[in-house]
């Protein structure tokens, strides 16, 4: 059986209620930080959620995965509310899958993170002889569906309409495992922490060198640092002398934390330089911005001595692996 998947990165420019109402100020403020970066493409413990999803699909027997930037949600399809631009891209992707002879099509959105086993959903779909199976968590739809592509063959291009008509007849797959909706920055932080604590199946890309201390290839940590697990330090990242990294913090690849800085309960995005003798607490930091999770506010950092972008460090480009010498790491428990 040939299985294909269409993975949509973002919803079309309308909300789930199917109206053109703009986001209210609160929602806009919450999305301010992460709206500036394409979330699914961000590294999260060493690998983007997009790559993780694609890997999972591959492991479940999916031969081709088409990634599109924008497309309709299933709720929008059910209500026949899809903006023409988003719909056209999605239509093209479906048409291509059908043309290529895909028999079963997985439609999903890179929004929420789940530990969902696609093989299990596909098995359920087959057992029920369903035309459309939609995945639900206890708090609602996960925007993941499996469609019998044969039902779309005679759609003659009207895929949205055909699929919309199938939704009322759907089979429901109820999933009660780990779900993180990733709706606000706090959710991303919670996901990194949950993963480091083993509360979900997401695993850091690297090796566990101490109790809950994960290191990516070529990570360098000065012997004077205090590292208290659970902590993730990504590939090619360098932690300078006298730094303290604690509280379930995750520092992604190719970052540099300079002398004497403390990183606590924070997520530092890839290729970020954090200057010397600073305190980063309960925050998400990119190379230009910092979002404080308690204060729910974001600041732009204009001083490159404080925070800026790094470039990939030379030693990772040279392919050095697992750069830390064990006895150089001080792990406080």
């Amino acid at each position, binding site marked *: 059986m040939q299985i294909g998947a269409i993975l949509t990165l973002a919803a079309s420019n309308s909300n789930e209620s199917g109206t053109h109402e703009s986001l209210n100020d609160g929602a806009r403020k919450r999305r301010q930080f992460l709206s500036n970066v394409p979330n699914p493409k961000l590294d999260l413990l060493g690998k983007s959620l997009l790559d993780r999803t694609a890997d999972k699909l591959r492991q479940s027997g999916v031969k081709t995965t088409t990634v599109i930037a924008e497309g309709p949600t299933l709720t929008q399809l059910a209500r026949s509310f899809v903006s023409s631009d988003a719909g056209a891209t999605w239509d093209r992707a479906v048409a291509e899958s059908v043309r290529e002879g895909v028999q079963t099509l997985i439609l999903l959105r890179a929004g929420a993170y789940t530990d969902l086993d696609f093989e299990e959903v596909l098995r359920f779909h087959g057992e029920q002889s369903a035309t459309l199976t939609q995945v639900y968590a206890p708090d609602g739809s996960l925007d993941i569906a499996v469609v019998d592509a044969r039902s779309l063959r005679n759609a003659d291009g009207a895929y949205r309409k055909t699929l919309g008509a199938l939704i009322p007849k759907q089979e429901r797959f109820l999933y009660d495992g780990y779900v993180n909706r990733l709706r606000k920055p706090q959710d991303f932080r919670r996901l990194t922490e949950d993963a480091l604590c083993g509360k979900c199946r997401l695993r850091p890309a690297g090796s566990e060198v101490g109790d809950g201390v994960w290191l990516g290839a070529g990570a360098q940590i000065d012997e004077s640092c205090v590292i208290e697990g659970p902590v993730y330090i990504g590939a090619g990242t360098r932690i300078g002398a006298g730094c303290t990294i604690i509280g379930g913090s995750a520092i992604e690849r190719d970052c540099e934390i300079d002398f004497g800085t403390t990183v606590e309960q924070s997520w530092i995005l890839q290729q970020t330089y954090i200057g010397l003798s*600073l*305190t980063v607490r309960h925050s998400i930091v990119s190379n230009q911005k910092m979002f404080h999770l308690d*204060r729910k506010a974001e600041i*732009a950092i204009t001083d490159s001595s*404080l925070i800026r972008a790094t470039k990939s460090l030379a030693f990772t480009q040279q392919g050095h692996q697992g750069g830390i010498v064990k006895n150089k790491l001080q792990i406080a428990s």
Partner: protein
Amino acid sequence: MNTQSAIMIKLPEVFGGKEARKLGRELKTRMSTASPHVVVDFSRVRQMNMAGLDGLLDCMETVAKNDGAIQLGEISPEASIFLELTRMDQLFSKFPVFDASAGCTAEQELMGEIEDLGTEKVGQPQPVAA
């Protein structure tokens, strides 16, 4: 009666080197009493940088040399993030707490008009955030 004088300074939305230098100049001209108490209100600040912070440190030095104290007044979330990041919040907390209950008569308050910096006339000293 033992009363205290206070200078309440409301910083602008963007507080950089230029604004800090202006603050320093104004402070020097307006510190007429010994042991001045300066309350810096960050409630409007949305953006700061290191030059602004350096300037603020210079002001603290000036005030300290006159046996006075600088304290934080109201503080916006953005300013508070910046001060925590740079550990300046710890420095501010070292200064003795301004005793609002000691009273502050209108005559003894310095009601400067540092227009660009938004210095405010203060009827009562405001609670100081640690």
